[in-house]
């Protein structure tokens, strides 16, 4: 087992004809992901190394049975592409694009929440890797192997760092999910942790957070109430410069939430052990699961 992506994944890549889109689509395919289609308006009839390109998601889904979308288009087109994928019946949209306007994210998030069963992961995320099964996104898969640790992270590169530390101790992963650090991520720590809790292959959950927002604090509450599996936390940003507070209103909204210390304490208060460095996270994993 694994979560979100596996051998049933049939991937359609939005922006497949762009340089980065082609590179990562092919990378995902080489890993074993079934890349069945691409979407680039006006380029229907072409193919990218054998993957057929369509003008619209509607047609791509109708012709290829795609069930998962990876969005790789520039920020000004990304919200539209996510909505198009959802409208066409795609059930999982993974958005890699960074720099999407915040109000776009808010509208897309709210619309998807209300109008059905579409899961969005990202935007501004590295994607999802289920080692040995499928890779959808830009996670460098060669560092990871199949195993029993589920990883969820707001940061891309930090995910690789932590995954790598675990790999060096001999741990593999059920799935690695980057949820992204944007103002309005489509999936939260809670959404992903709930899936790992339900996934029989996952025996330990690692969540990697960072300063800002309150997603880690909310996850701490959720874990205490709903999660039976051990969870190891990591928070980046203990020595980071204070973030931009958005006026006095921003300060009123966030209160004392959002610092690395507050987040680590919130997790520890709920029984989640928190590593202070990526290496410590791996050390704790060894303690819990055995070396």
């Amino acid at each position, binding site marked *: 087992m694994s979560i979100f992506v596996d051998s049933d994944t049939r991937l359609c890549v939005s922006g497949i004809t762009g340089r980065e889109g082609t590179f990562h689509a092919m990378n995902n395919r080489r890993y074993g992901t079934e890349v069945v289609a691409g979407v680039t308006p006006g380029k229907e009839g072409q193919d990218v190394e054998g993957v057929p390109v369509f003008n619209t998601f509607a047609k791509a889904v109708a012709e290829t049975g795609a069930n998962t979308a990876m969005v790789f288009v520039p920020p000004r087109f990304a919200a539209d592409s996510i909505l198009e994928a959802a409208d066409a019946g795609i059930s999982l949209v993974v958005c890699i694009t960074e720099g999407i306007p915040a109000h776009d994210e808010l509208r897309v998030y709210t619309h998807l929440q209300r109008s059905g069963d579409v899961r969005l992961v990202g935007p501004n995320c590295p994607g999802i890797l289920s080692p040995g099964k499928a890779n959808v996104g830009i996670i460098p898969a060669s560092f990871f192997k199949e195993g029993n640790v589920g990883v969820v992270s707001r940061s891309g590169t930090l995910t690789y760092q932590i995954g790598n530390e675990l790999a060096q101790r001999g741990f593999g992963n059920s799935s690695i999910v980057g949820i992204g650090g944007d103002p309005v991520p489509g999936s939260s720590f809670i959404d992903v942790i709930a899936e790992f809790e339900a996934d029989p292959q996952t025996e330990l959950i690692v969540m990697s957070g960072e300063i800002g927002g309150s997603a880690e604090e909310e996850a701490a509450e959720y874990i205490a109430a709903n999660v039976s599996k051990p969870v190891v936390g990591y928070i980046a940003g203990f020595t980071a410069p204070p973030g931009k507070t958005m006026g*006095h209103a921003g300060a009123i909204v966030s209160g004392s939430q959002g610092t690395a210390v507050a987040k680590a304490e919130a997790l520890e208060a709920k029984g989640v052990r928190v590593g202070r460095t990526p290496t410590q996270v791996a050390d704790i994993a060894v303690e819990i699961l055995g070396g």
Partner: protein
Amino acid sequence: MDLLEYQGKQLFARHGVPVPRGGYAATVEEALDVADGIGYPVVVKAQVQIGGRGKAGGIKVAQDRDEAREHCEAILGMDIRGLTVHELWLEEASDIASEYYASFVFDRSAKATLAMLSTKGGMDIEAVAEEDPTAIAKLHIDPLLGFQDFHARRLCFEAGVDADVVRGVTVLLGRLYEAYEQEEAMLVEVNPLIVTGDRQVAALDAKVTLDDNALFRHEENAEMRNVSAEDPQEVMAKERGLTYVKLDGDIGILGNGAGLVMSTLDVVAQAGGAPANFLDAGGGSKAEAITSAVEVILSDPKVKAVLFNIFGGITRCDEVARGLITAFEQIKPTVPFVVRLDGTNDKEGRALLAEANLANVHTVATMDEAASKVVEVAR
């Protein structure tokens, strides 16, 4: 992007939010022309991106031309908490009966916009929020439905707005939300929102933060960016597409991805070092970006050593190595570099570095090792 008061008021005015009549000036003579056009008394306001202007003497009322000249001369060039005043906004004096507070802010936790209204405006609203949270009426807005009149009325009645101006405040809030949403702001804040003696309402101040990611849709707003007010190194970095924040230490840090960079700062600090900056070269960094990044880091004279911590996903380590090599050719840095490359094309990257055999560059295998090493060479 934060706007200055006068920029915020111009943005408000475009959406019909009432603001006092006023004009912009960068010199005393310009200011007096503006003041003459407005008539006296006139208010002279320093335009700097910081709170507490009033207390610092940056806002003065002038009863006549002579007094206006006196105030403008005093305020232009004034230092307000480290910022020099280069710009003025002059506006008609308002007859203030009450001071309210109003804002719309993008609330990440709630994944919705938060609207706030209080009748305790004109003072430090954070203090109000702490002392008497019930003095601030709040509610969240559904982004697809938008801010409705009933939301505004509810805020007004909960906050205790005077009955005779509920209609006026409702209209103002509706327009303020329109400005917030259509201009894609992360924050619009009005403190004070005034009620005048003749029971009109107006925004007497304007604090606006725009979403940088949305500026491509708002040319008019993008042009308002006040480069002179920003840290020159941060401007340099932004122009090159890098996220750079200056810190107090002496170890330059470069990484790819905000999380990894933050984690690197933490690990360096734990190893006893003091980071000189936060620099995220971003996903998919190309060689040029890396070269630029080195330039930005080294433009800070305090930097005694530099740590490169790269874990390649979309970023390819060979590109990073190439960028570093070019930087050495162009800039010829004299401080030591510690480089850790992992991830996509890491072997190629390390091979390139080995081949270039740059002076004073230490290649290490892990992040922890990199931190210890850079602290050591910075001594």
